[in-house]
């Protein structure tokens, strides 16, 4: 196995070499998109289960397509219609899935550390598809892939992540990945949405969006959840939008070739205006496409695939 661990639980755990290997492997995977028949035999005979404790469209479908294009047998479990509602524990569910022949378990859970609980009790590979406020490593990887695809590099880039850093697993995975590959990362948002000690992850903190955007190469805009306002973390959506909404005027402070990213789904008119989301600098839709490529690469590597390049042959 080219990856050190049988599981991918977070970008914090992956070495620079492992991240590079995944990104390189994703390149031939993306080429499959251009083919009429998007199918590789790599995972034939393997079973992959998507175990989603939270609703999701893009991540679940992305994993599902990645698995199917690699010829895995893919099953989706939405917990609302599973034994979870009968009180089955996470571990029991995982062991049952393994007993049913699962080789790869993709889990999304509202609680941080849930994938770790499963990874410890099964032999199958576990991929974290987002756990609470912890990490969303495949999103981090697809963001890295997208940036590198457009900029040709990660090292030395100025990347700004805007919004609800406190609750964002995407921000966490982005920070680990980007800083490991040498980018300069600034997080920006109101102090109530910036978690304690984030500087120790190697990032700058800036509360003023216009200052943060100065000279930025990449801006990654996080979704703001309306319920945070009800919890008193900021006064109104209107004020949030005024202070932290990314619009065309604000983007002028950044480099003209700035890359605009958003993990989706976006609240248009709140954290990002529609013209920016659909503008020439936006790679939001490409991120989704690249997500499948990166997940295919991960599945390939976790199932014993070798060095990059082989997959295209």
């Amino acid at each position, binding site marked *: 196995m080219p990856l050190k661990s049988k599981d991918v639980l977070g970008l*914090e755990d992956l070495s620079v070499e492992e991240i590079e290997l995944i990104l390189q492997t994703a390149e031939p995977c993306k080429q499959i998109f251009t083919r009429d028949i998007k199918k590789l035999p790599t995972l034939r005979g393997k079973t992959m289960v998507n175990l989603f404790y939270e609703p999701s469209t893009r991540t679940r479908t992305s994993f599902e397509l990645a698995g199917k294009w690699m010829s895995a047998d893919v099953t989706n479990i939405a917990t609302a219609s599973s034994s979870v509602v009968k009180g089955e*524990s*996470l*571990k029991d569910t995982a062991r049952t899935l393994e007993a049913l022949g699962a080789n790869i378990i993709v889990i999304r*859970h509202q*609680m*941080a*550390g*849930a994938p*770790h*609980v499963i990874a410890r009790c099964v032999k199958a590979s576990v991929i974290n598809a987002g*756990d*609470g*406020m*912890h*990490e969303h490593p495949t999103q981090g990887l697809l963001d890295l892939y997208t940036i590198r695809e457009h900029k040709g590099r990660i090292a030395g880039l100025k990347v700004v992540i805007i919004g609800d850093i406190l609750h964002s*697993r995407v921000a*966490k995975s982005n920070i680990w990945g980007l800083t490991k590959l040498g980018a300069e990362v600034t997080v920006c948002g109101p102090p109530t949405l910036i*978690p*304690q*000690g*984030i500087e*120790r*992850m190697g990032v700058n903190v800036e509360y003023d969006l216009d200052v943060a955007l100065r000279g930025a190469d990449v801006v990654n805009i996080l979704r703001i959840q309306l319920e945070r306002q009800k919890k008193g973390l900021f006064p109104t959506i209107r004020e949030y939008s005024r202070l932290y909404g990314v619009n065309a005027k604000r983007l002028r402070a950044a480099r003209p070739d700035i890359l605009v990213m958003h993990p989706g789904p976006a609240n248009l008119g709140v954290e990002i205006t529609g013209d920016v989301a659909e503008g020439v600098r936006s790679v939001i839709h490409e991120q989704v496409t690249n997500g499948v490529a990166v997940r295919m690469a991960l599945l390939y590597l976790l199932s014993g695939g070798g060095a990059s390049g082989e997959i295209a042959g």
Partner: protein
Amino acid sequence: MRLLVKGGRVIDPEAGLDEVLDILIENGKIVSVASGIPAKGIPARVGAGAGAGTGTGAGGGAGIETVDEVVDASGMIVTPGLVDMHVHLREPGREDEETIETGTAAAAAGGFTSIACMPNTTPPLDTGAFVEAVRMRAARAGLVNVFPVGAITKGLAGEELAEIGELRDAGVVGLSDDGRSVMNAEVMRRAMEYAQMFDLPVIPHCEDTNLTAGGVMNEGYMSTVLGLKGMSPAAEEAMVARDIILAELTGARLHITHVSTAGSVRLIRDAKRRGVRVTADATPHHFTLTDEAVRTYDTNTKMNPPLRTREDVEAIRMGLADGTIDAIASDHAPHTFEEKDVEYDNAPFGIIGLETSLPLALTELVGGGYLPLGELIRRMSSNPARILGLGDKKAGIVAGADADLTVIDVKREFTVDINEFRSLSRNSPFGGRRLKGQAFATIVGGRVVFKRWVAV
């Protein structure tokens, strides 16, 4: 019934004792502390009424008698019986987690002769009848002394005062809504005023629950990295500050339990300097582990107050060293395997500690140079006994005192094996940890209630 504890290094900081001596016990009382007391041929009623201190205390009794049992303490230290002032026995209500019988067996194995049990049982100990029931069951278990702590408020709801007078009559040694904060300052003020007339210490669980809502670990860098909701140290410190202010206002005896932050230590130190009647304890896990231990999402690192940072751990150690923190208490909080074998957010707070408290204290505090041995013994015996008002008869090695003694093998090095615990629960983060120093025997009321078999 005569018991002779022979050849141990007897350390009692209160009595100023530190020398190799024998201790003769008769009918549950210490009758003599002297060197060279023979196991056979001792005069009857030797040393009776000889008072504190050493000396043969030969009282010119009638006839010659033989002791019934000898505990060979050579190479070990003999201390006043250890007192753990913060224990959860879970009975009544959660006998699947711990019973009074298993909890007291764990206490005995940990070297404790007396424990104070917290009132957050089901139902809670908020009436005299429940307190008496616990005491009766403890007496039936017959291992270590159990001193219940009564509730501050009815149902631990934080709204109306419990019948504190009745609780006192039933034998409580303190008042606490442990596990829950008394958030209403007015209620806390009245509780302190009222408790004062019975001279009962008020032992608050200091946590501003508005600041910690949903929190599962210390708030800081680690909670950010792990994506777990944090509990700010300010939530503890705000309540420690409030309760110190209320103690100043009312003159009540305040005991801050399970102190976990540097800020709390500072507040208590300042209050003591001002002469406020405040005492404090800290737990072995708070002076041993940091929030780095949560990294694996092991639910045995989930406790309340949570594990804090390296700076907090150091502050707790310094607080113990300079006397700001008077006592060490385990906050023994048993939970079943099934309850803890879940996602971190879903797991209950708390770890067991009765059987690792002394070894951790010896290893980390004495071994780490923070406390000399005698001072550690004071923090684990006479200080908690004094705070709980257990009187002169507990935790003192003097003729006439209750024969509650702990024999400690300070040289024994061992690896913590959670399967060896007497507690019904296994929720400890210390399994596999190498420690030095452990209780060898525990003597309660002149009876050996625990003796460790040691392989040759």
